[in-house]
């Protein structure tokens, strides 16, 4: 269970998160949707301790990470995998080294075992014979898939996905969604996915939270959100230009 209670965060004079509370149930996929620039990625960075909130609390499996020591935070981080919006691959390493990196740093597996795991992880995300390529030789979609393989390779208990399928073609997008669903069914991780893939994300997620103006506007099962009567939620899902959400 991930629990966020009354979270506040400002950057200078700009308030990004304004009293946000959220509970992501254990073993379920929770999608975080909402207009761009509303702080969805900022919220993910708070969950993994990359950003410190101005106030409020975050509990990961019952343990608060607010003001925790670095060693304690690292212990909690070992439960996590994270896929960054811009992939965040190590550009001095090739694809193999990137995906193998968590295994080399966090396990005592032999080189042969690591090779097998890396090749298998890359095949799971639809990549073959790219192990020796450097990240600047990959397309945006391929980078995302390599980063996804890296995030999944340690089979973490909690996985945060920051727009895992943005910039991918529809077939790869569906394949990635299926991979997340299948991996979730096999390992039962808790997950929060920031996504703009509407309506596809409703098929993938168990729960959906709509973030608007620094707060959770509505949280519920996918069907509830899809059929929401809230004008903000329904405008966002329909993609209509008319409604309470203004572009500027």
């Amino acid at each position, binding site marked *: 269970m991930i629990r966020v209670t009354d979270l506040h965060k400002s950057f200078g004079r700009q308030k990004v998160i304004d009293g946000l509370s959220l509970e992501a149930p254990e073993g379920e996929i929770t999608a975080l949707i909402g207009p761009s620039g509303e702080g969805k990625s900022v919220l993910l960075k708070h969950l993994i301790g990359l950003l410190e909130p101005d106030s409020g609390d975050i509990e990961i499996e019952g343990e608060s990470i607010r003001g925790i020591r670095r060693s304690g935070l690292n212990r909690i981080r070992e439960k996590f995998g*994270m896929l*960054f919006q811009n992939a965040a691959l190590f550009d001095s390493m090739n694809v193999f080294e990137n995906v193998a990196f968590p295994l080399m740093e966090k396990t005592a597996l032999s080189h042969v075992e690591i090779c097998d795991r890396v090749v298998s992880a890359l095949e799971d995300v639809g990549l073959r014979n790219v192990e020796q390529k450097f990240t600047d030789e990959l397309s945006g979609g391929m980078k995302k898939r390599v980063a996804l393989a890296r995030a999944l390779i340690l089979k973490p208990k909690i996985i945060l996905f920051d727009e895992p399928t943005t910039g991918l073609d529809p077939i790869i997008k569906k394949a990635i969604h299926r991979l997340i669903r299948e991996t979730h069914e096999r390992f039962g991780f808790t997950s929060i996915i920031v996504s703009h893939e509407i309506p596809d994300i409703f098929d993938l997620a168990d729960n959906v939270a709509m973030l608007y103006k620094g707060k959770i506007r509505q949280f519920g099962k996918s069907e509830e959100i899809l059929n929401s009567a809230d004008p903000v939620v329904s405008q966002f899902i329909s993609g209509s230009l008319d409604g309470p959400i203004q572009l500027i």
Partner: protein
Amino acid sequence: MGRMGWFLAYSFYMIFRHPVRPLHILKQISFIGARSIFVIFLTAAFTGMVLGLQGYYTLTKFGSEGALGSVVALSLIRELGPVLTALMVTGRAGSAITAEIGIMRISEQIDALETMALDPFKYLVSPKMIAAVISLPLLCAIFDVVGIYGGWLVGVKLLGVNPGAYFYELEKSVEWRDVYSGILKSLSFGVIISWIGCYKGYFTGHGAEGVSKATTEAVVLTSVLVLIWDYFMTSVLL
């Protein structure tokens, strides 16, 4: 200043924390040290040659050109070797350290390390600091030796100073404490170069412009700090 001090202290602390990463350290020694040898060789040779020329010109006024070896060696070992080595390494490796860490910062690679429960100081900063502290004295030693032979080439081969006198005066005048002070300076310059380089990269601004600005600031600040610190060390070690 407080943040810079904390950065240095934490980097030192992480050096002694498990696990030690010998491969990372070796890679950094190769980058900071081995790949700087050519530029150090070139700089040292011409510095020694200029010292040979200038020294000869001055010493002939007093009829003491036999002391050329002593002048060249003491200038290099005590002062020019450590300082010029530090300035050349700052330009070649210090700027690259800032750019590398800065790009890792803006492309969220450092965040990725943290999410994997790896301390960026342990992984990125400490190996560079150890490598710089090991590399600088070795590069300085190369600088000193090459510079002395540069002075010998001009003084002895071109200007006709007695070769025996050149090395005899050198051997007679250079003491262990001269070498010792040069080594101490180089060690501390190694800390300064890696500290400022890593610090500026770690706290870089936004985008390519931020990295560019951080790199320039790192080179300027390191160069100035090297010269200021050199003065204080010289005044203590004399």
